[in-house]
């Protein structure tokens, strides 16, 4: 892992995300890109009639940029951020488009971002920003809300189905596992559709783990009416430090209709960070 991208909006959870990214960067000697994006909508508010609006917008943006860079610098003075190389980007544009652009051009390996969580009607139409990144990012996205000072990843719950495609997901999670010498709990959520007997679940999970050459793991199942409930129940009961899962990238209408398990988890998980890995 060489490059970590942290979208930053100064919120509590964004700062938590930055601290976590820093911990990861220390272990891998990666560099961290901090990205603050000002959406044009905000800038448009200050344009008035009779003036050179665009020039005003630019001037305002430069002003904002200066303040943002200064404030980020202040934050980085804390000992929490020692020993890691940071680069700061302050830009204007659409948040998720800009981030996705950075992910490809900067050869980002991992995105670590805060999530406020979304509930209610908004969830259906707007989705959270985090959701959108999770949906479109070609690299794993680690979402964080809270972070204890003595945060350590000892137990990773990796929720998978029993398809061979999941071997790739396991391999991606192995990299995080290695950094923390963590134990991985492979979890299959058993539902009425896609119901398997316990013995078969353990066997098939073992086969996937062997194919991915995974060590220090155990196999589990949870009976539930849907994946989100199963994963969240299990992770909470087990006091997991991290939830990992694969996300299928769906666009447009099919997404609106089917929804996404990962996005639901990201929105509803209380304090447990979620690592979403794209299945290519």
């Amino acid at each position, binding site marked *: 892992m060489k490059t970590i991208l942290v979208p930053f909006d100064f919120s509590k959870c964004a700062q938590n995300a930055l601290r976590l990214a820093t911990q990861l960067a220390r272990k891998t000697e990666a560099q961290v890109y901090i990205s603050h994006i000002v959406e044009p909508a905000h800038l448009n508010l200050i344009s008035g009639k009779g003036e050179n609006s665009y020039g005003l917008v630019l001037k305002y943006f430069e002003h904002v940029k200066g303040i943002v860079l200064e404030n980020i610098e202040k934050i980085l003075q804390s000992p929490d951020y020692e020993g890691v190389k940071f680069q700061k980007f302050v830009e204007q544009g659409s948040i998720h488009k800009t981030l996705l652009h950075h992910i490809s051009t900067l050869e980002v390996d991992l995105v670590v971002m805060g999530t406020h969580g979304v509930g209610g009607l908004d969830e259906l139409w707007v989705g959270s920003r985090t959701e959108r990144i999770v949906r479109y990012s070609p690299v794993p996205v680690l979402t964080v809300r809270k972070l204890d000072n003595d945060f350590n990843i000892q137990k990773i719950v990796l929720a998978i189905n029993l398809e061979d495609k999941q071997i790739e997901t396991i391999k991606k999670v192995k990299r995080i596992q290695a950094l923390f010498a963590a134990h991985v709990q492979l979890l299959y959520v058993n539902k009425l559709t896609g119901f398997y*007997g316990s013995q078969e679940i353990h066997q098939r999970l073992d086969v996937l783990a062997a194919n991915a050459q995974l060590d220090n793991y155990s196999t589990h199942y949870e009976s539930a009416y849907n994946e989100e409930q199963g994963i969240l129940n299990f992770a909470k009961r087990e006091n997991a430090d991290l939830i990992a899962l694969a996300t299928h990238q769906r666009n447009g209408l099919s997404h609106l209709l089917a929804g996404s398990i990962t996005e639901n988890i990201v929105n509803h998980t209380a304090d447990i960070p979620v690592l979403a890995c794209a299945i290519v």
Partner: protein
Amino acid sequence: MKKLLVPIDFSDCSLNALRVAYQLAQKAQAQLQALHIVEPVYSYVGAADGMYLSAEVEQKYLESLVAAAEEKMKEIAQNPDFGGVELDTQVKIGNMFNLIKKEIETQSIDLIVMGTQGVSGIDEILVGSNTEKIVRMSGCPVLTVRENAQVQDFKKIVLATDLYSENRAIIEQIQALQQLLEAHLYLVYVNEPGDFQAQRGIEERKAEFVRFFGLQNYSFQLYCDKSIEAGILHYAEDIEADLIVMVTHQRNGISHFVAGSIAEDIVNHSPRPVLTYGLKTKALS
């Protein structure tokens, strides 16, 4: 547990059952009763040949059977393997079920230990049902032991339950047994596709169940399988259980374990010892 009854037919199977009963009797400091039953075969013998056994011949035949049996029982009684426990041996003539029922009542038997070979096919309808019959008829629990079961100790006890229809008398007996054996209780609820339940809801039921009965030293698993019988057998296999406890329920359609056929199935197919309780089980004295 004060008195154990072991029906003997001198097969390896029943002798193994006697060994297991002996271990239990030692632990509980209980009395052990070995009983051999000679069932008189009445006039249907020889009917096809047109030969009839006269009453005297039949009587002589029975007497020689009884004498031979009594010899073998004496050997058992004197066998040092069964030392240190009050062992009573008897030979009786009559119908097996009726005699056993009578023994249970007159002798206040607390547990019957029976050898079984396990069965499939037509026999399946008969053997498991023998256990069922005794259990339902007598209200006395029955422990079935396979002939090649190596029973060192009962430390892992599986209790299959639906978490709401168990009765206090039976659970108290099971707990008493658990304490006597210093065993760990493995509660299992089997999730089958025909009646799928989510873990979340079952956990609540389980918490209530544990609280209500004051269970100690236990674990719980929501196990998934294609049928309840398969789930119980596979779970016991997974954890290498020493004993499976089944409760046979009345046929009233409400209970999840319909008609007690599940208990029968387990008795017929389990390589591990199975302890079956019936609803008539008396409360602990």
